[in-house]
């Protein structure tokens, strides 16, 4: 489950970074946005792998597909499930950076909005790539290799937005949130469209 | 010439890498051609 496996993993990442960087608390505070989002991305890979594995094992996927639901609805359902898991993880990570890195949420509205947009983008792209990776023996290692380079603009945007929202950087976080929203729309759309093509022969 | 080391390094990397790749393509081509019957070797059609 998310709670017993993926969440602890995300927290471990935060702690490992704290140990590895051996930094005073001010440096960690500055680094918090980046570390938060790297931990989230790693956790998202696990969450997506898990959601894909669950379906192939229980053959609910086959059942859903044969149910006649249009592909985009299948995609939306899947992406939503992943997104909710990610939001739960992010909530805990937020607590984590407050406690471990002394972050403070100067602009909570900005932080939450940016996180929502980024999460939709990650969940959408991730769900599509998750299905692309289904059915092959090498899927566990291929998913991060496919997904993470594509997530680079999300990473850049989310860390900048958080930099502003956590008060560690003099940036305009809302512009970056705009980019994140655009990415969310793009990946949701592309994901929904491509899903039909991809699940034809799963 | 200034920066000679960098120049040789940069140009060298490109020429050597492309040469190695070219040789590997030629070799792969020979091996594969030998395995395919002669009448199926032509690759010019655009339809499949």
């Amino acid at each position, binding site marked *: 489950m998310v709670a017993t496996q993926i969440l602890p993993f995300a927290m471990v990442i935060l702690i490992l970074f704290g140990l590895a960087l051996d930094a005073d608390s001010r440096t960690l505070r500055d680094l918090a946005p980046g570390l938060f989002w790297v931990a989230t991305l790693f956790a998202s890979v696990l969450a997506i792998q898990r959601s894909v594995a669950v379906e192939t094992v229980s053959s609910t996927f086959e059942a859903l597909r044969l149910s006649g639901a249009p592909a985009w609805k299948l995609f939306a359902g899947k992406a939503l499930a992943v997104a909710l898991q990610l939001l739960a993880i992010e909530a805990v990570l937020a607590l984590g950076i407050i406690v471990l890195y002394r972050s403070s949420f100067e602009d909570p509205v900005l932080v939450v909005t940016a996180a929502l947009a980024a999460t939709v983008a990650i969940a959408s*792209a991730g769900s*599509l*790539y998750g299905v*692309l*990776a289904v059915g*092959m*023996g*090498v899927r566990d290692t*291929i998913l991060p*290799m*496919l997904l993470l*380079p*594509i997530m*680079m*603009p999300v990473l*850049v*945007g989310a860390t*900048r937005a958080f930099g502003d929202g956590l008060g560690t950087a003099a940036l305009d976080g809302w*512009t*970056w949130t705009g*980019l994140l929203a655009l*990415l969310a729309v*793009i990946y949701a759309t592309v994901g929904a469209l491509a899903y039909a*093509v*991809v699940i034809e*022969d799963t | *010439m*200034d*920066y000679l080391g*960098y*120049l040789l*390094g*940069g*140009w060298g*990397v*490109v*020429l050597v*890498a*492309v040469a190695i*790749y*070219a040789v590997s*393509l*030629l070799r792969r*081509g*020979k091996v*594969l*051609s*030998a*395995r*395919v*019957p*002669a*009448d*199926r*070797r*032509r*690759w010019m059609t*655009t*339809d*499949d």
Partner: protein
Amino acid sequence: MSTTLTRPSSTASEADVASTGSKLTRVLGIASLVGLAVLLLLAFVFTEPDQRVFDRGLDLDPLLTGQGDAVRLLYVHFPVAMVTYTAFSLNAIGSIAVLWKKSMWWDNTAAAAAEVGVLFCGLTLATGSIWGRPIWNTWWKWGDVRLMTTTILFLIFVGYLAYRRTMTDSQVRAKRSAVVGLIGAINIPIVYKSVDWWQNRTLHQQSTLRDRAIEDLTLFSMIFGMVVFLVIFAWLMVHRFRIGWLEHQIETVGLEAAIAERRAQTSAAVEDAVTDSRASAGSGPPPKTGMN
């Protein structure tokens, strides 16, 4: 049906040679070698080091004085970068064609272009880094727009190639890798823009071609270099395409052989069954339907 090589007849002169070479590749190959030789002469002998001095007033930004002999690296860096973008564009076109027309020919082209593209992308990064060391004083500049974009491009297509290797069904592979390739291509302008906004400025040489202060021979050499490397690209593409095609043939031939074998087995089994039943009908108890 045999899948091994049979000695070809002497009438088929081109099919004699068990290789992917042909007249086309010989022409391209010779042109490449000659062109490279000329390019090397241009780069190292006939062009001058970049000794320009820009009068920008007291605040002399070191980037704005000529780069001396390091400009000679650009005569390989720029062409190699152009080949990279050409290769990945070709992959994007091929991916669209696969999804739209379901063309295996285009799938083969896309795969070949991706492989050659990854090689040249790596070389772009390498030559750029080697150029950057003396000029920028660093091997790597985080936040340089073109460097970041090219790096992500490299990772995307390394992933694409790895992904292709996980699938054995050629139809499925064609379709799925086309999706991956296209999403990768769509991402490039996004990545470019994000990094651009991130940094607002770039250490990267502003597009050299647009700088009219460059003397004619330098400009000519860069364009000539691009042409030479595009010819090399063509040579590599033709060979790589043919290799992919041969692999496809082997797959199909193998499949057909397996089907033919199965058919042969089945018809042999049927024949045996018929023969057996005839034999047993002759020597066994009379059939119940017969009149005795």
